[in-house]
């Protein structure tokens, strides 16, 4: 089993993801340079948070042209696990590997804080050891995390159970107050139709050890290991 963490120019959570995989869940991991044209040999690929290309244009708009994105697209088509966190989610949405788009936060400001996520489905390689409605305490840190999709797409991903996490209150309710950025339906994370590509704005990489305030994020990485073990 081998994890890969992609480095785009301007990524800044690549070491955080690498650390969690190597030191917290104890799995082999290597960096993947954005100009690489193959992801052969990897079982799961993580697109970390950061500001690829400075996000000076639209978030993810330049990163999707990095050579590695074609390889990752092919890898995803073949069922490989592709996990985008924060800026990684924005890039996956921009590249069309996930439906919808991430708009500017409704508050127009960057927001960094711990909050709660409610698990909406356990039928994904990223949530298979969670329980439905399980609450996770995981922080966000973004300026463009406002999930948007046209009504038809939104209905489709809801009907298919593609919404994996929603922003919730500490008691598990889905309310406007719990929503940090204005995302439709409080959506914090979604998978593609094949369920092997996950994008989420919150940072499990910052909440996988209790000394950082929460170890809930680890459950997502452990679900991935679980899925890969089951897949043999």
């Amino acid at each position, binding site marked *: 089993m081998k994890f890969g963490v992609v480095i785009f*120019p*301007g990524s*800044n*959570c690549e*070491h*955080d993801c690498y*650390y*969690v995989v190597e*030191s917290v869940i104890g799995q082999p991991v290597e960096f993947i340079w954005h100009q690489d044209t193959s992801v052969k040999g990897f079982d799961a690929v993580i697109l970390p*948070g*950061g*500001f690829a*290309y*400075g*996000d*000076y244009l639209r978030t993810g708009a330049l990163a999707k042209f990095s050579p590695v994105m074609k390889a990752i697209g092919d890898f995803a088509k073949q069922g490989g696990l592709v996990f985008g966190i924060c800026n990684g989610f924005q890039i996956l949405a921009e590249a069309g590997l996930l439906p919808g788009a991430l708009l500017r936060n409704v508050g127009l*400001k*960057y*927001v*960094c*804080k*711990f909050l709660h996520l409610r698990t909406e489905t356990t039928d994904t390689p990223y949530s298979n050891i969670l329980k439905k409605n399980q609450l996770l305490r995981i*922080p966000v*840190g973004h*300026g463009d995390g406002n999930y948007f999709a046209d009504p038809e797409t939104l209905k489709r991903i809801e009907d298919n159970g593609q919404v994996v996490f929603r922003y919730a209150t*500490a008691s598990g309710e889905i309310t406007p107050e719990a929503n940090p950025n204005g995302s439709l339906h409080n959506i914090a994370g979604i998978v593609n139709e094949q369920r092997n590509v996950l994008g989420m704005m919150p*940072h499990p*990489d*910052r909440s*996988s*050890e209790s*000394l*950082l*305030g929460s170890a809930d994020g680890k459950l997502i990485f452990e679900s991935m290991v679980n899925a890969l073990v089951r897949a043999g």
Partner: protein
Amino acid sequence: MVSEELLTQHNLTESEYQKIVDILKRQPTLTELGIFSVMWSEHCSYKSSRVHLRRLPTRGPAVLQGPGENAGIIDIGDGLAVAFKIESHNHPSFIEPFQGAATGVGGILRDIFTMGARPIAAMNSLRFGPLHKQQNKRILEGVVGGIAFYGNCFGVPTVGGEIYFADCYSQNPLVNAFALGIFEKDKIFYGRAHGVGNPVIYVGAKTGRDGIHGATMASAGFGEDAGAKRPNVQIGDPFMEKLLLEACLEAMQKGLIVGIQDMGAAGLTCSSCEMGARAGTGVELELDDVPQRESEMTAYEIMPNKKKEKEVFDVFHKWGLDVVTVGRVTDDGLLRVRQHGKVVAEIPNGALADDAPLYQRPLLPPKSIISSRLEHYSFLDGCEPAMIESFLSANPDCSRLLKLAVSSPNLACRQWVWEQYDHMVQSNTMVGPGSDAAVVRVKGTKKALAMTLDGPAYRVARHPREGAKLAVAESCRNIVCAGGRPIAATNCLNFGNPEHPEVMWQFSEVVDGMSEACNFFGTPITGGNVSFYNETFGDDIYPTPVLGMVGLIEDLSLVTRSAFQDSGDSIVFVETVNRLVGRIDLEDERAIQNFISSAIRDRLVKSAHDISEGGLAVALAECCYSNFQRGAIGAEVRVPSHLELVKDLFGEFATGVLLSTIHAAELCRRAEQVGLKSYDLGKVGGNRLILNYEGERAVDIAMDELESAWRQGLPKLLS
């Protein structure tokens, strides 16, 4: 002889001009005049402050590098070292708050990574005029936005800081940025141009007009033309700097670099001659090879420009950066600049860097100091006058006073600010903003680093020497309360016009106070920055030294927070026998710090919070609601009957600490053993904060209500 007007433009005096002629043994060219102007500016040369700064302690067992390099360095064991420094970006931040603050963060990060260290934490200390004035809101929002823009994109967590408001900062806000980086201690890089014949390489953004003469601007006060100086503020590019960081660290790891120098306020000139002077070499630059954003720029304009780093081609190209060779190291000790085949400047490196003018400016104690009216309640400084009156009017309703205090500008929750900063990136933040000290763990070890900024300007304005000692003591205590041992500090000395003898007297007093306390606590100053000319229309700001203290926590399990942790815990108040406001007794301070340290080490303490602005009552409230992880928790305490209600509850006796514990009796016994007074005040728990006094409820307020007053304080002022 050059015209008076030309000298004024360059901020050079006639005697300084004469000195230039003596050094060169001829008249300077226009290019040379520009170089001297920048290198001999107050900002670069410390010409008014150097005679005083020599009195600061700079050595200690853990110090690997003191002042004189890009940043100070301390040894933290395990083969690791930490580089850290604080620097001001006050003037640019007034002219253009967003970009001024952003590039201030950029500058201090460069200071750290050009030494080979990866920045792992940033903090900032900010001062603004009162928020009931519209312009100050705009400046605050711009500054906070700029810091967030830069730090978040660069990927360094902004883990703490402080913000205070007072009238004197209305036209002259202060933006002091701190950064700390970590590296292996045998991989330190210095800004030295060694090796005759080595190329001098220039990397980064192309030099443009937007940053020219930033250093000379930082060395003059503001009048009505402040707006006209906007083009002097550099435009920040955190993405570019992030690439530079990665490329520099990679080139250093690969051993490709001999010396490296941040191109700070003075750009290419400053960095070249500093590198040459330190190594005793010369540097020859070919200006035609320096990339320019605007082709019609003259040599003179390029020379003193803010600029970035230089390094080795392959690595930099891999990271998508521009890189050119613009010169080489020579053996003649001269900074030589060529353009269009001609030598346009030729100056002895040593003269530029080391023979800068040195002024022993006159000192004079001021005839009057700020009023003592707020001596006990300095937090009220910067409040609307009506609010101050309301607080000071003999109203004994302490619940109401407490609500008023916690929603006041200087005490209200800063969450509105720090939620905009990424304070968690790099996944090391154990204690983030909103505690006495920030704590980041050191991956690969069981250690953590604690850091704090402290600048009690009101206290320093009242009594510069005592205020400076207080700053050192409080910052050390903050580190101790977090479970750490203070090791070393960096200082940012923000003052008014050094040509005012009263300002120089304040400066000298502050240096003496800081020296005394730093010597006493064994916390040398490893570097920092002086910012003079913080004045507008002739009015000087408060003398505002800001201290950045760094400490080591030997074991992650010792990390202690300021917020109450668990219901049912006892609340113990410990203080020195001498109760002082606005100053401390050094011996007493040592006693209380040693007491806290050993109590934490022996695992007797669950939380520790020092009493500061707003006194005992506000400190209690902060312990209740600053637990961002779990949410607020209540407490019920008994105020000792020998205390006076308003004066002792809100008075800023800077000599006490609040601890929560399940070992109250043991703590009190230990406190008494070392000559401290201690009181078992009551218990953590419930959803109200209740202060009983002589059988009555002096304060009885729902935590929801109190917390909301505290949280809404700043957003309300900004709306």
